[in-house]
C-alpha cells in the first residue's frame, strides 16, 4: 500500500512533531505536494498530540478524516490505539511499545488497558510493535525512540534510505545526526525483517 495519509500519535514531549516534520520533508523532497496539521499549546503539556501528514499530486485538506489514514505512526501504544478510528481498512500501524500512564491511570482510577496489542492487530492490515524505547536506550539515548519508529515506518515507503538520511540530518540538531541515523537504521531493520 502506498502511504499517503499518515497520522502521528504521541504524548506531548515525545517528539511527535519532529517525526511529522521529517515525514513532510521527505515527501516534499520526493517531489510531491504535502500538507501537515498539528495542534500546539495546551495539548503539549503531557496530553495527547495528534498530527497529520498528507501527500499526493495535489493535497487540499491538511486534516485526515476518520477511516482514511493509510498508516498510524505511534510513539506510545495507548495513543496509537486511540488513533485507530482514523485508520482505513487494511492500514498499517507502526508503534512504539512504550507506555506512559495518563493521569487517570496514574491515580489508579482506571487501569492501563492490557488489550492494546490485540486491538491494534485486529484493526490494522499490518501492525508492527517496536520496542523503540529499549532500542533507543541501547543506541545511547531513549529520546531518539521517535526516529527508531520512523525507521520502521520507512520500510513501508518507496523512498531511498539515503533520502531519509538527508531529511533526518536536516531536521535534528547537528551534533545528534549520527545518533539519529543509527536509530533510524535500527528501526528500519525491524521493519524489513
Amino acid at each position, binding site marked *: 500500500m502506498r502511504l499517503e495519509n499518515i497520522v502521528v500519535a504521541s504524548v506531548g514531549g515525545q517528539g511527535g512533531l519532529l517525526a511529522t516534520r521529517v515525514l513532510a520533508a521527505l515527501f*516534499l523532497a520526493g517531489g510531491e505536494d504535502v500538507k501537515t496539521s498539528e495542534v500546539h499549546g*495546551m495539548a503539549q503539556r503531557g496530553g495527547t498530540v495528534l498530527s497529520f501528514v498528507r501527500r499526493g499530486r495535489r493535497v487540499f485538506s491538511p486534516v485526515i478524516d476518520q477511516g482514511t489514514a493509510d498508516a498510524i505512526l505511534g510513539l506510545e501504544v495507548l495513543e496509537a490505539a486511540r488513533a485507530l478510528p482514523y485508520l482505513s481498512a487494511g492500514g498499517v500501524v507502526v508503534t512504539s511499545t512504550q507506555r506512559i500512564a495518563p493521569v487517570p491511570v496514574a491515580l*489508579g482510577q482506571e487501569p492501563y488497558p492490557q488489550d492494546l496489542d490485540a486491538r491494534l492487530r485486529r484493526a490494522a492490515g499490518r501492525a508492527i510493535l517496536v520496542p523503540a524505547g529499549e532500542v533507543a536506550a541501547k543506541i545511547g539515548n531513549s529520546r531518539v525512540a521517535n526516529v527508531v519508529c520512523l525507521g520502521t515506518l520507512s520500510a513501508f515507503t518507496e523512498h531511498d534510505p539515503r533520502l531519509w538520511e538527508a531529511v533526518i540530518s536536516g531536521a535534528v540538531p547537528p551534533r545528534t545526526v549520527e545518533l539519529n541515523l543509527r536509530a533510524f537504521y535500527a528501526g528500519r531493520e525491524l521493519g524489513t525483517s
Partner: protein
Amino acid sequence: MPESTPASKALLYGNEAIARGGWEAGVTVATGYPGTPSTEIIESMAGYDEVYVEWSPNEKVALEVAIGASLGGGRAMACMKHVGVNVAADPLLTAAYMGVNAGLVVVSADDPGMHSSQNEQDNRWYGKFARLPVLEPADSQEAKDFTVMAFALSEEFDTPVILRSTTRISHARSPVETGERAEPPARPYRKDPLKNVMLPGHARLRKPVIVNRIRYLERYAETCPFNRVEWPAGSGRGVARRGFVTGGIAYQYVREAFPEAPVFKLGLAYPLPPAALAHFASRVERLYVVEELDAFWETEMRMAGLEPVGKEIFPAAGELSAAIVGRAVERFEAGVSEATAAGPDEPAVPAERPETPPPPLPTRPPVLCPGCPHRAVFHILRKLRLTVTGDIGCYTLGALPPLNSLDTCTCMGASIGQAIGMRRAMPPGDAAKVIAVIGDSTFVHSGITPLIDAAYNRTPTAVVIMDNGTTAMTGHQGHPASGWDARGRESPRLQIERLVEACGTRSVEVVDPFDLQALEAAVRKALEPGDGPAVVVARHPCVLLKRGRGTGLVVALDEELCTECGACLRLGCPALARSGRKPEVQASLCVDCGLCAAVCPVGALSGGSPRPESGGGGR
C-alpha cells in the same frame, strides 16, 4: 501547484508564512502577545533582522505600537489570537476611523474547536463591526501572499486590514514559494489632527468617510485578486447542479469532498461582492455556503438577496472537515433531515466495530509537568480549602483532577477582579476564603489594574502571583518581568514585588513555593482580615527552563515506611504512578523537585537519590 517543482519551495507553517509575508512587504515594526495559535508569527519574525519585533505586555499595547508605527511611516503588523483582539478592540475600533499612513495589518489567529482557548469566537465579525476589510488565506502560500498584498490594500484604501487565520492554517504546513523583501515607498509623517486626533468633532467627520470606504471596498471586492471562481471542466459549461461559496480552511474541505463542483472562493472574507456572488448563484441550481463557525457569509449573502444552504445543514460549533461537509450535503440532497445534529466529533466513516465494543480508552488530559512550581501552590490552596479565582496559563490545568484547585477561568487578568467581586458579595465567612491566582506574564498583561482597584477601594483581596519567569504555556516567550526580549536578548526586568507595592497593597511577600511552610504561612497571612490586597509572589522558574541543568537525582520510595495514604498521588505528578496502593517513582520523568517527599507524612519518599541505571517505567 503540482506543475511547478514543489521541491524548490519551503514547507512553512501558516504562521511562518505570515511572518515571511510581512518581511517581504517591508514591515518595519511587528508586535504581538503570545497566544495559541498565533505565537509563531512573532517568533519567526524575530529571525528577520530588518524588522523591529517586540513581545508587547498585551494586545492593546501591541496594536497601539503598530498604529504609531503606521502613522510614523513604517508598515506595521500586530499579531494575536482571537481573544487577544478583544483586548485590542478599543484601539482597533477607532483606528478604523483614523485610517493609516503606512500599511497596518492586524493578524487574528482564531481557534475553531478550542484546541487551546476559552472560546471559539469568529473574528470575521470584527471586520463588519469596525468596517475593516478581512483577508482569509486557505493555505501557507496564500498566508504569505495575502500578507504581502494586505499592506498595499491598507495603503490604497487608507484602512487597517484584518488578516484572519485559524488553527488549521496557522499550524498546518504546506509548500510556499517565497520572494524577496521590498522596500515600500517612503511615507513621511504628516501632522493631520482631523484624521488622527479623534475628538468628537473630528470623529464625526471621519464616520462618513469610513462608511463610504467599506462601500468602495465592496465594489473593489467584485473584481479583487483575493476572490476567485473555480469552475472545474467536469461540472459543465452551463448551469451546474450545485456550487459552493467558501473560503479559508473550509475551501480545502469543499474541494476535497467535491473536487468537481464549482466554487466561489472568498479570500476577502469581508466585505463580500454581491454582484459576483449573484452571478455565480445564477449558474448553479443549488447554492451552498460553507464556513467554519458562524453564519457570517450566509448572513451577508441573505442580506444581498441570495438564498444559500448553510448552517441549516453545517455545524456552527467546532471545526469542519471534508467528511463533515461531504456528509451534510449528501444527506441534505438525499432528503434526510439532519438539522445541525452532525457534531464534529461524530466519526465520518464509522470504524468497523467488533461484536462487543472494547471498553473506552483512558483519557490523557494535559498535566502540569513533573517539577512544576505551580503544583506546590495548588497543594497549599487545596489544603486550606480555599475558593480560587483562576486565570489563563499553564496553571489553568490546576482545575483538573486530582488538583481540582480552580473555581473560575474566564479571560486574561480576570482572576483578581473576580476575587474582588466575590469578596464584596459573599457572606464574610465565605468571602474570607477567596484567593486569586495569576501567572507573571498574565499579571503584567492585565492583572495590574484590578490590583490597583482592590487597593484603591480597600477590598481585602488575597492574590498569589505564580511567577515562573516566563510565558510558559505558549512555549516560553519573554515578557517584561522575564528579563529577556522577543529576540532572546537580555532586557530590564520589571520588579513585580516593587510594582505590587506601588499599587498600594497591604503587603507583599516573595516565597519559593517549594518551601511549603513559608508558602502556607504567606498565604494564611494574605487571607487575614485587613484593608486592601495582600499579595504573595510564589517565585520559582518554570521547570522546563532548567531542563538539562538538573541534578540527575530522583526521589526514592521506602516501601516499608509507606502507609499507602495517597497524599503524594493526589499531587497529580506524572512522575508518580500508582502501583497497587503505593506510588511508583518514574525515574525517567522525576526531576527531584522534592514536593512529594515534602507532603509525605511519614518520610517514605526522599529526594536526592541516585537515578537508577535503566530508567524505570515511563519514557
